[in-house]
Every structure is written in C-alpha cells, then in structure tokens.
C-alpha cells in the first residue's frame, strides 16, 4: 500500500518535473518532440489511411454479398509472368451465348447476371446533351444487384426486355440531373448514338467513392448492348450468386464445370477463364496493404530510432546542465532511484508528448485520406495505443543511460560543479 502510493507520487512528481523541465527548455524540447511526432505520425497516418480503405472495401464487398463470384476472361489483377499475359489475351471472349447457355443449363438455384461496359458520350434528350462521356453498361435483370444499387423510381429490366433486346434504359441520377433537370424521366425517350431508348427506371443516388461518382451510368439490356456496342474484344463478366453460403462452393463448382462445357475446354486443360471471388479480392487487397504497412513500419522504425537518439542526446545535455541541481537534490535526500526515475520519467514524458502529437496528426492525416476518398473516418485506437506504448519504450530505452549517469553522480562533486 505504502509502496504503491510511493510509486504513484513518484510518477506524479516525475510528471510535474518533466513538464517543468520541458517548459524551461521549450524550443529544445519541441525539436526533440518533433522527431518522435514524425515517426509516430508516419505509422499512425498510414495505418489510419489503410484502415479507412479497408473498412470501405470491406463494406462494399459486404453489400455485394459474400455469396457472389464472377467469371470473366482475365484475372482481377494480372501477374505478368513470361508469356502469362499473352496466354490470357489468347483466351476466347466470354460471349452472350455463353451467358445464355449457362443460364439454361444451371441446375442449382443461382442468379446469373451479366455485365459489360463502355464509355459513351453521344447521349441526349431533346436539346440537352451530356457533353462528356458516361458509363454505358450492358445489363440484365440481376445487374442492379451486382452493381449494388437500387431503383429509386420506375421498374427494373424484365427477362423479356433482355430476351427481345428492347430499347429501354435505366439511368443513374447524375445522368438524370443533366438530361432531365425539370422533368420526370420515366417514359421519356433519350437518344444514345441517335437511337431512341425509353427510360424505365432511375437508380438511387450513391454519391462518391474513391473520388468518383457512383451515379454516372446508363444501363441498357445486355442483348442490345451486344448488338450495338460490342466489338471483337468485348468479353462479358458473368456474376453468379449462390442461394446461400452453404451452397457457395457447390454453386461455384457447378458454374466452373458448366463454363468448361459451354466453352468446350478439354478435360486435361486448365480453365480458359478466371474466377474472381470476394475472398480473392480481399486477399489481393490485404497483400497490397500489407506491403504498405511493412514500408510504413520500416520508415517509422528508422524515424523513431533517430528520434530516440535525439532524446538520448537531449537527456545527456540536460544531465550535464543540471549537475548542480542533481547535487542539491541528493544533498537534501534524493536517492539514486529518485534521480533515476526523475530523468527517466522526463525522457518518457518527452517522448510521449511527441507521441500524442504524432497520434493526433496521424489520425487527422489518415482521415483526410478518408475524406478525399469519401469513406467513413476511423480512429484506430489499437494503433494509437501501440504508438504510445512504443513511445514509452523509446523513452525508457534511450533515457535509461542518461538517467543512470545522473543517478550515479557524486553529490559533493555535483554540488561544487559550476
């Protein structure tokens, strides 16, 4: 009990003395603090930024549903091995026929949607034109779900719209803003490349993500898209959604099997298409952020090491400057441990003040990334905690030697020191 209160009062006194010492040497202390702040800032900033990216990517993948996967011609991220790129380019395109066959042959319950996109600027309604390029998407009745959006007004495509390639379209709110500022677009006909399409639906507004509007698109039936906008490079992406998580593996196996049959892949050959699942995307993303984390980690280790040496230096100077003070304190009863803890505490608080500044700046800086990318801000408490813990360790590690020197000064000689 007495021991504990002693520790408590030692810490409190150490804190007071540290504040006093820092206040008495403002500029010097601030410069020393700066080193720590920069080190902590770099790691907290990067971690916060990555955390915001992660949470936004995860939430997007979440909404997309864990039960979906996509089959397309090329992998999500291409690794350019020798000849790897060419091999992928030589794959057959995925065509509308493939999609129709997949749909017809599938036995397990699944939702298949199909998508392809191109940029198109020749879009007009009466005298209003887009004046810029928008995303033109070929889609089917499940595509809205695949691109994770909902109708705000009107209706979705029907299977017949797709089958008969009807001239209908669903617009994103950005397009509506430009073409129909004062009118209800439903039922009106817009012109894309001179051909009329009747607006049947408008989607909800989603805002920006990663600095880009998510509302700037025009959907038309995929069948129509193939007829009018495809070329010899057009290859579709087919999105599958299993009925439940339990069925996911089976559904994927069936889809792969069917795809091989449909595309007539010989038994001994590997798939001539790529399967992209959420797990795979998350893994790829984790690999990417992992690299950044390691880089930021090593940068801040170096920065903190330099800062630690700065602290050691400043503490050694401080001990030399305060030899007399140390002598006085010893003469009136300070033990070695008192002096040791005083100087150690000073080093720890010095580095922790720097750490606090670094954490605050780092979280602020990291969240600026969040604001720029329009994703929700995060406060990585765990990293803030690690940051502060590391600062304490730096304070102890680099403060212990100067403190030890101070503690072992001879009282009489220190008193005589001028």
């Amino acid at each position, binding site marked *: 009990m007495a021991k504990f*209160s*002693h520790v408590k*009062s030692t810490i409190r*006194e150490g804190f007071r003395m540290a504040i*006093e010492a820092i206040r*008495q040497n403002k500029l010097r202390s601030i410069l020393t603090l700066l080193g720590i702040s920069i080190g902590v800032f770099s790691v907290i900033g990067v971690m916060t930024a990555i955390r915001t990216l992660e949470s936004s990517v995860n939430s997007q993948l979440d909404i997309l549903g864990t039960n979906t996967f996509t089959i397309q011609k090329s992998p999500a991220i291409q690794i350019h091995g020798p000849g790897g790129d060419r091999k992928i380019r030589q794959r057959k395109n995925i065509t509308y026929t493939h999609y129709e066959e997949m749909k017809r042959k599938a036995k397990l319950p699944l939702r298949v949607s199909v998508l392809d996109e191109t940029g198109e600027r020749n879009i007009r309604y009466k005298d209003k034109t887009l004046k810029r390029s928008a995303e033109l998407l070929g889609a089917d009745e499940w595509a809205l779900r695949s691109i994770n959006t909902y109708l705000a007004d009107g209706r979705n495509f029907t299977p017949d719209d797709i089958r008969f390639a009807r001239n209908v379209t669903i617009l994103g709110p950005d397009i509506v803003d430009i073409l129909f500022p004062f009118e209800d677009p439903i039922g009106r006909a817009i012109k894309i490349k001179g051909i009329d399409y009747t607006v049947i639906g408008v989607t909800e507004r989603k805002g920006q993500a990663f600095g880009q509007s998510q509302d700037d698109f025009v959907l038309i039936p995929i069948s129509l898209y193939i007829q009018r906008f495809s070329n010899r490079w057009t290859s579709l992406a087919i999105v599958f959604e299993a009925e439940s998580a339990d069925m996911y593996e089976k559904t994927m196996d069936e889809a792969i099997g069917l795809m091989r049959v449909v595309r007539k892949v010989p038994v001994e050959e590997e798939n001539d298409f790529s399967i992209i699942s959420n797990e795979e995307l998350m893994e790829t993303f984790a690999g990417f952020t992992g690299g950044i984390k390691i880089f930021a980690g090593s940068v801040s280790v170096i920065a903190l090491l330099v800062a630690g040496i700065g602290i050691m230096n400043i503490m050694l100077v401080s001990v030399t400057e305060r030899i*007399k*003070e140390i*002598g*006085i*304190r*010893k*003469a*009136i*009863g*300070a*033990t*070695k*441990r*008192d002096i040791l803890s005083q100087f150690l505490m000073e080093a720890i608080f010095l580095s922790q003040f720097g750490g606090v500044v670094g954490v605050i700046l780092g979280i602020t800086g990291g969240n600026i990334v969040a604001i720029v990318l329009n994703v929700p801000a995060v406060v990585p408490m765990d990293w803030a905690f690690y940051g502060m813990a590391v600062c304490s360790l730096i304070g102890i590690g680099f403060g212990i030697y100067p403190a030890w020197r101070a503690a072992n000064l001879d*009282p*009489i000689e220190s*008193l005589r020191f001028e």
Partner: protein
Amino acid sequence: MADLISLNSIKRHYDVGGEIVRALDGVDLTINKNEYISIMGPSGSGKSTLMNMIGCLDSPSEGIYEFEGELVHEMDDNQLASIRNRKIGFVFQTFNLLPKATALRNVEVPLIYANISRSERIEKAKKALDAVGLNDRMHHKPNELSGGQRQRVAIARALVNDPSILLADEPTGNLDSKSGVEIMKILDSLHDDGNTIILVTHEEYIADHADRTIHLFDGKIKEDRKTSKRRSVSS
C-alpha cells in the same frame, strides 16, 4: 544523555595524481543535542570536508561515525540519502536553491523525497517559510530574491523535515553584514528552540554566536573550547 554524533579518528584522504591529500586526518568529535558549534580554521584546513562528513554527503576513508547510535560509515547510498533527508538540514554558502523553482517549491522538495503527501508538503513548507519570515515571498523564484532572502529559503528548506541537526557551511559568506546578522538571528533563535546547529565561518564575531568553537588545522582539531556568550543583544 546519548551523544547525537560521535566521530572517532575520522580520516578522509584524496588521491590527487598519486599524491595523498589528507583533508581530514584523524578527527575525534562528540556532539550533543542542542549544541551550538562553530568551526573555524584557515582555508583548506578541512572545514567543508568535515561538514560534508557530518552531513552524510561523504564517507570517511577510515574511522567510525555514529549518528544517533547508527553506524554511518557502514551505510550504503540509499541509507545515507535517507539520513540526509530525515535527520540533516544543510545550508550552503552559495544557497544552492533550485533556480527555476519558487521558494515554496524549493522548500517542498525534501518532503517529496520523504514521500509526504502534497497537501501536507505545502502546509509544512509554508510553515517553514513563515518561520524565517518569508511568507510574502513564497511564489518568488531565487533570482527574484535578495541574497539574505535566498539564504532564509535555504534555511527553511533545511528545517522543513525537522532534522536532528542543522549544518551551515559559511552561511553568511556570500552576504552583506546586515543580511548576515539577520541570518545569525534566525540561527540563534533556532538554537533557542532546541535545534542542534553547526556552522562554519571565517568570522570571529559570527563564531561567537556559538557556545563551542572548534579550530581545524590541516585536517586535525587544534582547539575545541566553550565560548563565552557574546551574542549581540537581541533587542
């Protein structure tokens, strides 16, 4: 009555480049409670060394030192620090205050090391400053105080922990005579209150405040006599 302090053939030698300096060369000394002692002697005779020895700042090269029955010469650093903190009050010629701390804070510091709660510390420190007549200067820093006032802060600091003995090494050495007289008045009244005091001085008229004067020469006690009270009239 048990002796407060007993020194038995205390020696303190310094090795300066192979040459032995005998700062104390066999000192025998007994000090009782409530004694008022002055130490005199030429420069280099070992007065400060003796004071540091009595004040447990220094350890003898040889000899036996007992303080209230405890063997000081066998103590380790922590025990010495504790004795300095609880039993000894030191006043130096050059004041030795913490320059950036207020008077109150300076007086408070010994109590920090005595592990006394903050509120009690402040209360005691205020009382000690009151006793030396500085209650209106508590929040001044040393450079905002006169020499005499600084020395009074130092005395308050020395007294704040109720020590068994007050050691003053040339307490008036850096002061003008008027401030010196004030300091001596304080020491006299502290003695009257029952404190034990040892002071080092070069001035006869200051030494005369004490009841007993010890003359050092070359690290040895040359003379140890009772002095007739010739205190300036405390009007």
